[in-house]
């Protein structure tokens, strides 16, 4: 059965700050949904709420109809949803392989066999192209490789829906092309669904099946990528009213 993640009317307040003011969306296994919006629009908060890192103030998050918004983060991962970190958070003192191995041992597989878990970890490392660095301490990886490691770890958890927080940011044009190629290959091979928060427009527009735009904690547009970015509300959110008027 295809797994479906649904977010309904989610609100999140931090004291007097309304980070999310009622956002709804859904992501199905196998589909890529882009989530864009200006800085501070609530994208990362939304991912944190889905991942169980933050509890929503109101609204629900469901996976195949089952409420998951009150579950702690580790339970959400067990159910098959895993999130990367905007700033990579590798376990610095562990090798790259151990970093991935941990994700296999826990994650949604909860495989208790260490030897088998590390075979699996080797497979994931090859998949993302980190096998050369398997024995390298994560502390010695470059920024680009740390981002790959983030991706490797969420894949290693066996999750069916990935929440990717700016995995394409800060890459050179060549690196970006490579990373996008890698993502497409991985998605074909594994068939996961993903909610992709991204500022790099080229990546979002190329990879997403559907794009959602949020601004100031509200959804302002949703649809096929090329269509969404032409909507006046979206141009206004990014560039201001003048630009929106000029464009239409």
């Amino acid at each position: 059965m295809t797994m479906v993640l649904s977010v309904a009317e989610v609100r999140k307040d931090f004291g007097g700050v309304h980070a999310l003011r009622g956002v709804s969306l859904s992501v199905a296994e196998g589909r890529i949904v882009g989530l864009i919006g200006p800085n501070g629009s609530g994208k990362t908060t939304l991912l944190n709420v889905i991942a169980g890192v933050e509890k929503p103030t109101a609204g629900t998050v469901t996976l195949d109809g089952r409420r998951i918004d009150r579950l702690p983060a580790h339970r959400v991962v067990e159910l098959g949803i895993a999130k990367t970190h905007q700033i990579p958070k590798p376990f610095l003192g562990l090798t790259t392989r151990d970093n991935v191995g941990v994700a296999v041992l826990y994650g949604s597989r909860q495989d208790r066999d260490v030897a088998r878990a590390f075979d699996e970890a080797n497979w994931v490392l090859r998949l993302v192209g980190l096998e050369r660095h398997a024995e390298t301490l994560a502390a010695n990886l470059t920024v680009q490789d740390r981002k790959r490691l983030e991706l490797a770890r969420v894949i290693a958890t066996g999750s069916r829906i990935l929440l990717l927080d700016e995995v394409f940011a800060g890459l050179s044009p060549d690196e970006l092309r490579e990373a996008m190629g890698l993502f497409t290959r991985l998605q074909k091979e594994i068939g996961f669904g993903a909610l992709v928060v991204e500022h790099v427009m080229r990546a979002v527009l190329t990879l997403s099946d559907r794009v959602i735009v949020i601004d100031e904690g509200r959804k302002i547009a949703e649809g096929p990528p090329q269509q969404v970015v032409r909507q006046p509300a979206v141009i206004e959110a990014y560039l201001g009213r003048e630009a929106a008027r000029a464009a239409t």
Partner: protein
Amino acid sequence: MKLPAIPKLGPTVWGIAAFLVVGAIAAPWIPIYPLTILIGLLVFAALAYSMNFITGLTGYVSFGQVVFMGTGAYAWGYVVGTFRWHPIGGVLVGAAVGALLALGLGAVTLRFRGVYFAIATLVMPLAAVDIILVTPALGGGQGIILNLGFEPLSWFYTIWVILAIEIGLTYWVTHGRIGYGLRAIKGDEDAAKTLGIDAARLKLFVFCFSGLFTGAAGAVNAWTLSGVFPNDAFALLFSLQMLAMVVIGGMGTLLGPLLGAVVVYIPHTYFLTVVVGAEFIVIGILIAIIALVIPEGIVGALRRHIPALRRILE
């Protein structure tokens, strides 16, 4: 690429096992004075391994660890003194009380991180002393004085069994799935949670082990003294020595706590007969040197600088 085989039982395990087996066979022929030194060393080693469970594996610094030692000792003294239990039964009770106390205290204090956890645990032995002082059933300020006789071989084999079980558990934890979970928590607890690790449960699990063995070692220590005294049983010094052993030997390793116990215990006994208090200067200087030069402790430094030892030392 082939996964390097995880050594099933490496040289470190065999080395520690040989040390324990030789000790167990030789014990009846060891003269009294060296035997008491060896017993003290094993008690320290048991304390070091119990500290290793929480501080070595998770990075949570348990400054109040002595609270489990003290309550283990008091639980032992109470059942042996009041109910006339056999001292070994008392040691089992001490272990159980240590584990239960760790479960209760850990459920609350393990929510704090870093220095807040250290401070939260630090106040526990201070509170325990005050409670004991106003509890007549536990001897109040006088403590519990028992007249049990001098039985070094019983002490030796009791602490030997405790230490052997503890090292076995350390091996099981560090080499299994739990060990990877704990290393992840030590590395970055938030990231660990987002990979499916139930950090709260895992930390509490090892903290209970830690309390269990600290309680057992505290009970044996009280047995060798034939009594329990409030200010000695909860002395902060023990916490510091336990920390020193783990830091000097190598946090989270299999061999480190044993090496740390030797390095801390030898000056401890030596200076007791020469200049009381000088051991702290020695241990203090050692810790300062280790923090500056080899923050990963003896085992970590050996592994880093001598590649040949990497496959051998754990």
